[in-house]
């Protein structure tokens, strides 16, 4: 929520990422050429309806796409390393230690037959070496090929307890099984696992969506603490715009595999630019006033065969001729807000106007 984020360094840079799923009748273009950056210490919200490709995009960044899906093209730079150029082993070392995931339905992603401490220990042990190298390079990089030090059992236990405490869990869950914990506690156990190796980026996929509001608030607080105190950058995938307003610094809006808008949270809620974003903001139900429901028909195109021109043309209330033929490029209509829509036209002085205003006034 701080303005100085705009000056922060880019941690993750995704360029023109395309992830397609193969089907007998052609590829489904789940993610069709998206580019965005994640800055140091920010929470980047990634929103859109189910099937818009937000989870696929995140899995693409983590390279956890499994067949029939495949990464068709793109560039993913994490702190200067191109993830697409790495070997499987290098990638494996990278995960958890530099790029961690809090998976969708984290509550069900814990192994029911292992105690909490075993699962966290597993992550630490598996990636210890990578973490050590990582830590060493952070501390000046005098790692001269010496085998990394393994943590002793006592150290490991201390570390796990420290992690549990950090996410606000009581010590006794150390030796409990996942089914003994509540949903919010499991979720925080997953956060503990995600931060175990001090990654620079965490991707949280719908990590609070199955929780009650009060518990959600506790988990959200923990995630904000991760950002503020550990300086971890996060991509938070979700569809709860209320939660996004509370947590995110910037928000990326996806529609049918494309990014239609990237804006700071303030712009997003005050002056949403893209008609789809406007629809998203309007459909947030209010607890303040009862208003008529805004119903939108979810007609979408065949994802194998997107229409030429704008991706949102079938549902857009402001569709123009141009939208059927020409794909709108993302343009920065005001500082901190990029929109891919023909409604905004650049003027000679570099500012943007809303085409609708011109039509009305003439």
């Amino acid at each position, binding site marked *: 929520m701080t303005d100085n984020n705009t000056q922060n360094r880019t941690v993750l840079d995704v360029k023109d990422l395309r992830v397609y799923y193969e089907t007998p009748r052609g590829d489904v273009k789940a993610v069709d050429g998206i580019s965005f950056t994640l800055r140091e210490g920010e929470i980047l919200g990634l929103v859109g309806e189910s099937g818009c490709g937000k989870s696929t995009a995140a899995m693409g960044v983590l390279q956890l796409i499994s067949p029939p899906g495949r990464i068709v093209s793109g560039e993913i730079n994490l702190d200067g390393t191109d993830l697409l150029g790495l070997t499987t082993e290098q990638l494996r070392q990278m995960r958890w230690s530099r790029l961690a995931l809090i998976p969708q339905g984290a509550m069900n992603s814990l192994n029911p037959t292992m105690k909490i401490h075993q699962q966290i220990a597993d992550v630490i042990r598996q990636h210890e070496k990578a973490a050590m190298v990582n830590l060493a390079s952070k501390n000046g990089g005098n790692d001269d090929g010496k085998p990394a030090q393994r943590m002793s059992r006592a150290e490991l236990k201390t570390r796990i307890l420290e992690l549990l405490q950090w996410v606000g869990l009581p010590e006794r869950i150390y030796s409990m099984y996942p089914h003994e914990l509540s949903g919010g506690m499991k979720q925080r156990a997953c956060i503990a696992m995600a931060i175990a190796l001090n990654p620079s980026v965490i991707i949280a996929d719908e990590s609070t969506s199955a929780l009650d509001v009060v518990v959600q608030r506790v988990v959200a607080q923990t995630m904000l603490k991760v950002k503020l105190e550990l300086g971890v950058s996060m991509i938070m995938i979700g569809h709860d715009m209320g939660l996004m307003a509370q947590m995110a610094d910037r928000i990326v809006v996806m529609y049918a595999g494309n990014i239609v808008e990237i804006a700071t949270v303030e712009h997003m809620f005050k002056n949403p630019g893209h008609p789809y974003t406007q629809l998203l903001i309007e459909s947030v*139900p209010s607890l303040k006033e009862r208003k008529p429901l805004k119903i939108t028909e979810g007609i979408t195109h065949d994802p194998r065969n997107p229409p030429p021109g704008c991706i949102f043309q079938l549902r857009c209330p402001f569709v123009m001729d141009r939208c059927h033929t020409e794909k709108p490029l993302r343009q920065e209509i005001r500082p901190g807000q990029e929109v891919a829509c023909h409604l905004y036209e650049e003027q000679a002085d570099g500012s943007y106007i809303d085409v609708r205003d011109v039509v009305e006034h003439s």
Partner: protein
Amino acid sequence: MSEMLLSIRNATKVYTQRGAGGSKRQVVALQDFNLEIAESPATITTIAGESGSGKSTLANVVLGFTPLSSGQIVFEGTDMTRATPSQQKRYRREVQAVFQDPFGVYNPFYRIQHVFDMVIRNFGLAKSKSEAREMIEQALNVVGLHGQDVLRKYPHQLSGGQRQRIMMARAYMVKPRLIVADEPVSMVDASLRAAILDVMMRLRDDGISFLYITHDLSTAYQIGDRIFILYQGTIAETGNTVDVIGEPRHPYVQLLIDSVPEPDPNIQWEGTIELPPDEEMRTSQNSGCRFYPRCPHRHDRCLTASPPLYPVGKAGHVASCYLYDEAEVGAVQG
């Protein structure tokens, strides 16, 4: 007073958990719960609460999936806990359900048509194929769909919103008096939720009452008539939806409403909250007020007995909290 469609009287459901070595632990999922839904006009009654509050237990007992430990469910004057098979059959027809997961309720091997064929066959709704076809088309139209678009498709070819609306159409076709909707929109995208909620409102105006079970207060606020907010199996507060959400009185309900994230980046949550771990794991508090461990206003009295429902505002708005005990308030002021 008008006739009651559904009365739930002193419903209590206790689950017994058997631990290692024969130890037993009793979990009270629902305690002395009372609810009435009038015959007419049709209403949307919301049951809200966090997971573990007993709201799904309530849905299950109303649908007859689990028997009550004690108490009664009276439907149109018949006590369903001791109903004859023919009464039960009628009840199964008059009370329909729509569940949370629009993916899990479908058999992926069958086309959508099958869902409707089954229900027509089970209840003998149509005499001929053409009558059945008409009936299906009409039910689909009510939820804003067309047979030609969906009937030949497989469940995975439809969106969650469409699948959920088809479930509504299926329930509607039976022409029930009551639909128990257990979290019908929680797995559907925000932009498509409105269509389902709108169907619920239209069916209500058509004379079908709803028992709307949800954890999402904002959708309840938009469409609900009466709301019950449960906390660990007991009613924390109930009343007209607008009154309860606009002016919550029970400390838990206040916390709950305060925690709903505001879709405005300039209004942030105030302060941080912590949940006592015992509370989170529901191992505490079997007597007195369930909210005691977390309550900012707790008092010794709260431990002695579960607080009754005290009137706290407009007609029918009551909260289970000693803060609103008239005698107590009077004594303090006097």
